[in-house]
């Protein structure tokens, strides 16, 4: 009974990690390839949740189609935002991108409040996941297995995209040396549009996938972006696998912390972040900054 319980607790931790991964991998990717610290990342995650709600009119039977539509819309919106706004600050000091993305966060929150109101929007559980699964005699939400699967598939596809395709190789190259990449004739501005679109699409997908377990609120963007930063700081900026590792660590630390030291459960993610910053300030899988002469 007890062993089964620990297995269950690990699984809940992994489910939480899955949502964290979808949320934060885009943040990491965008920073890595473009050097943009996107404070509005959580806002697109929030938009994903609201869009699923809007596309399906809050009805569970439109869930699957809605999810795909959110992914596509996320990409389009991300590409659009990069073209119209983000593009203008590449050449400027970093304060500008922080001001810009923070402004986007505020604007999107107000837009959401304007169109959807201030209340919580809940979305019913899709029929396929209505009942719990029984694992070792204990009920476990089947939707959590779906979340874990979704994150695993996304990580795998992203890995193939980055490490097995030409476009992916360019994106990785952009993290190293943008000028050289341009000199080789790659259309870097277009590449940036794609990176931003993919990062935003994943965040939106994460927000939408979470909606049946949580609820959409105008304030969720800020919470989300803080969580994403914790994950990325632990895992290392600019690293997909770092985001995965950071998310899994946070998920497990939270799940096991609750078991052994419930009084201190909420401290663990922050403690983990502080420890990482002390021992490996560039993150577990990040690269230490090159020494400049």
């Amino acid at each position, binding site marked *: 009974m007890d062993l089964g319980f620990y297995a269950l*607790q690990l699984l809940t931790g992994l489910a939480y990690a899955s949502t964290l991964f979808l949320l934060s991998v885009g943040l990491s990717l965008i920073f890595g390839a473009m050097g943009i610290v996107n404070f509005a990342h959580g806002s697109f995650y929030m938009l994903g949740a609201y869009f699923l709600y809007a596309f399906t009119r809050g009805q569970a039977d439109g869930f699957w189609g809605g999810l795909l539509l959110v992914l596509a819309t996320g990409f389009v919106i991300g590409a659009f935002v990069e073209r119209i706004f983000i593009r203008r600050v590449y050449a400027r000091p970093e304060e500008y991108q922080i001001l810009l993305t923070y402004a986007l966060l505020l604007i999107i929150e107000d837009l959401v409040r304007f169109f959807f109101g201030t209340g*919580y929007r*809940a979305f019913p559980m899709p029929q396929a996941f209505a009942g719990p699964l029984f694992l070792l005699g204990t009920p476990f939400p089947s939707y*959590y297995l779906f979340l874990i699967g979704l994150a695993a598939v996304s990580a795998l596809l992203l890995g193939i995209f980055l490490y097995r395709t030409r476009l992916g190789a360019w994106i990785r190259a952009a993290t190293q040396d943008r000028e050289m990449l341009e000199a080789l004739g790659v259309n870097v501005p277009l590449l940036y549009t794609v990176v931003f679109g993919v990062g935003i699409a994943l965040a939106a997908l994460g927000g939408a996938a979470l909606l049946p*377990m949580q609820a959409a609120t*105008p*304030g969720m963007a800020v919470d989300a972006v803080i969580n994403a930063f914790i994950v990325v700081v632990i895992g290392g900026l600019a690293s997909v696998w770092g985001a995965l590792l950071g998310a899994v660590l946070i998920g497990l630390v939270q799940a096991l912390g609750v078991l052994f030291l419930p009084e201190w459960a909420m401290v663990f993610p922050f403690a983990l972040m502080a420890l990482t910053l002390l021992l490996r300030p560039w993150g577990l899988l990040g690269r230490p900054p090159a020494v400049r002469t």
Partner: protein
Amino acid sequence: MKGWFAPLLLALGLALAQSQQPIKIGALFILSGNFAGYGKSGSQGAQLAAEEINARGGVLGRPIQLIVVDDQGNPDVGVREARRLILQEKVDFLFGIDSSSVSLAVAPLTDEYKIPLVVTHAATPNLTEQCRPYVFRTSNNARMDSWAAAALAATLPVKRWANIGPDYEFGRVSWQDFITRLKQLRPDVEVVSEQWPRFGSTDYASFITALMRARPEAVFSTLWAGDMVIFARQAKQFGFFNQVKYFVNPVGAALEVLVPLGKETPEGLLVSARYWFLYPNTERNKAFVEAYRKRFGEYPSYNAQEAYAGLHMLARAIEKARSTQADAVKRAFEADGGLVYDAPEGRKRMRPEDHQVFEGLVWGYTKHTPDYPFAILERMRIVPATDTIYPTQCKR
């Protein structure tokens, strides 16, 4: 004759204008972020009361002017906005406040500027236990909720209790008050688990499984707002509400929780809110619900009713004091054993010593009916005000 008539008219006009100067009330509510729903209902309730008061000619012949600002639930912003209301807008009173930490931060300004503050939502018992002369609370506080919960819990046929509450002052104090009181009433109860998720958490899964593992018969919770919405949906997925016999939440019947949950609310939760719009079944309450619905197109939540009642109660104190001056209003609140006001929810009486209002509290079990798109309360349990009167250290 014409010679003196014009100046007289002018003087009369000036005098009239002087007496027509509005009584300015600066209201602080959370109007952005996750708790903006509460601030919205609070400011709507206050607005309805101000309109009613002005329609009958105002207070002391002066209209009420409500200035609503967003404190973001942030103590720094709250203090800044309160100071601005006092110094720039020249308000006569401060009003509202959703967050306990904002209320504690703003309270010292009442001494500094001699501007009374009427709190209608923030519920930490510490606010009134500071015994500040110009701080008044016209809603019940968290200790009264916890004591009412303990009074009901003591009658339930269960012994093994657990807690899940938000990890900050409100959650911690409420659980302490509840379990201390319950152990006084029922020495045989035991605590099998305490879970403290971060306030504003979005993932409760590991807390839920840890709770279920301890096999409590009953769970006390002060998760509120979106926390409660999200917790309830996730706990349901785990079969939590089938395993636990009683789930007791003093703030679970807030419409800000029940409306978004809709038909997903589990049945049989023992919950309360500081006001429930279907209780009491009086003409007074029905008229209020009707007026509120007509004005804003939704049912009044507890925060709306508390702000509504609070503004009316303040108006009554000003009328009784025949002045807006802080000391006169304070005396009016305290005189004759404390100001009494019959709100839509029933009688509110202010305790003169600590300026805390005491009132009966309504509890009930959640149930779905065809009449409403969200769960309502059935098998209602009314905890009389006398069961929630805790001792105070304040003296006047």
